[in-house]
């Protein structure tokens, strides 16, 4: 295992790159409503950055502190930190959050997992034989909403074959299940399934028909080989694969001056292997 941050460019830390890449993606969600939850400091930075760059009309909910559209410029470490609600235009209590999960009221959201598999399924339950698991996961919270929110986005701060597995030991958040159309035999058919996976090494999407995970771009400073070596299954690898564009000077300026003045992202742990 290597700390990914030091492998990034000298000019930015990997979590900063990930936040910038996520913020660019949120441009397509402008005007839509989404949210971030527990252990989500990078998506939290991304949503705040998106409002200031790609998605001025984004509606976003900031987890435990329960604020909508907060305007903090000092990124808190946790969405439950009361300071994460600074400048909000409204609040949602936990019941609203759950109700909207059930009704399909969320357009987008970010979810991670102890394991993420080749069809974008998520496991937060654990590894090994239930109930006395070898690795007891933290519990599934709202990973179930990958089945009900319109466009789930996935992320992990640890790109390793232990996280990116061929098949999850347990599924707590449904991705494309066993691929193809299998998802829609089980979950609400108005939802689209996982869109992208952001990791310290790369960005992945899903092949339209098979729904197998596919490499989309490799983060600057890394190679396709690095990605293959640290992924526990065979990714679909297209030809002519681009690099993820590094953060522009403008993106970094806004991120560091208006989103994360304390440099919290630089201290977020990201690992490879």
């Amino acid at each position: 295992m290597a700390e990914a941050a030091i492998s990034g460019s000298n000019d930015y830390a990997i979590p900063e790159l990930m936040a910038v890449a996520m913020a660019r993606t949120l441009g397509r969600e402008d005007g839509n409503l989404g949210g971030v939850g527990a252990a989500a400091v990078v998506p939290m930075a991304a949503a705040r950055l998106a409002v200031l760059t790609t998605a001025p009309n984004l509606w976003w909910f900031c987890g435990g502190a329960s604020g909508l559209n907060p305007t903090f410029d000092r990124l808190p470490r946790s969405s439950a930190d009361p300071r994460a609600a600074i400048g909000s235009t409204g609040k949602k209590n936990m019941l609203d959050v759950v109700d909207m999960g059930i009704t399909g009221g969320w357009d987008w959201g970010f979810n991670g997992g102890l394991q993420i598999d080749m069809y974008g399924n998520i496991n937060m339950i654990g590894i090994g034989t239930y109930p006395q698991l070898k690795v007891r996961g933290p519990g599934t919270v709202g990973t179930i909403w990958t089945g009900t929110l319109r466009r789930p986005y996935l992320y992990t701060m640890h790109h390793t074959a232990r996280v990116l597995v061929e098949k999850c030991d347990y599924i707590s958040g449904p991705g494309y299940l066993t691929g193809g159309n299998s998802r829609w035999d089980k979950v609400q058919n108005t939802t689209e399934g996982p869109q992208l996976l952001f990791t310290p090494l790369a960005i992945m999407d899903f092949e339209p028909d098979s729904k197998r995970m596919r490499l989309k771009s490799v983060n600057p400073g890394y190679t396709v080989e690095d990605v293959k070596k640290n992924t526990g299954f065979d990714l679909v690898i297209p030809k002519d694969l681009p690099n993820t564009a590094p953060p522009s000077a403008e993106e970094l300026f806004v991120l560091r001056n208006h989103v994360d003045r304390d440099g919290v992202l630089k201290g977020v742990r990201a690992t490879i292997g």
Partner: protein
Amino acid sequence: MAESGSKVVSLDEAGRMIARHKVISLAGSHSVNSPMALIRAAIRNGATGLTIIPPVTTAIATDLMIAAGCVDTFYLSYIGFETLGFAPGFRAAVEAGKLRVIEGDEPFVLLGTRAAAGGYPFIPVPAGVYDGTDLPRLNPMLKKIKDPHTGAECYAIPALHADCCILHAQECDELGNAQFWGGNNQEPDKAAAAKTVIISTERIVSLDHTRKNVDRVTLPGHKVSAVVHVPFGAHPTASPGVYGADEPHLKIYFDAVRKGETKTYLDRFVAPKTQAEYLDQVGLDNIFALQENA
């Protein structure tokens, strides 16, 4: 009204009250607004064999009770220390086969509490919410039924009743009318779903103060059994608008439990009988510094 209705008790008495119960629920999220002083008092008073219904996200509040050996059964949605890592007491107890986990999640714990608060035997959710996951297989309390109106399949989430609910308020009067200044408002349902409600508070305010600030009163006191005055009673978690979380202290706890040195932590931080003695151990300077991060 004031004198005869007062519900104020000592921290120790509150600890004894909690320790007499079996199914305990609490609010507060992650490292924010957990009723930590009440939890320490309950541990000191021999709480044992507990079933815990936590909020949908929890960290030290419940991990400490597990690490201290007080807990038999845990309704799980999420327990973790976010940037620090997995909850060490919880993880060790499960992996050692010492803790029974009900494999719940956000809707299970929240709607189970809602159902109990409302007197509904259960709340049904569309089958599509859980189908495709392993949760119904791992949690037999999720029962599949049919909507009698449409025939559509759904899962029934059963009401989760508690014996005793413990909460930390920023302000509370002696009748139990309480203000919770942050968070996501899980307190009212947690209180309604419990037989006994015990509140610790940063500050006991007058009934006139309550009337003047009625729009901020999040829990009326009629169901509250006891009120305890405990300044910094949420420490080391944050008390919204009063002080921030004590991250160095959380790391002391985290490292101690992970290294199997839980007893050292308990002796130093849980054994002290009064909040003043506890704050002495933490260091008042450290406490006051947290007020900058409220």
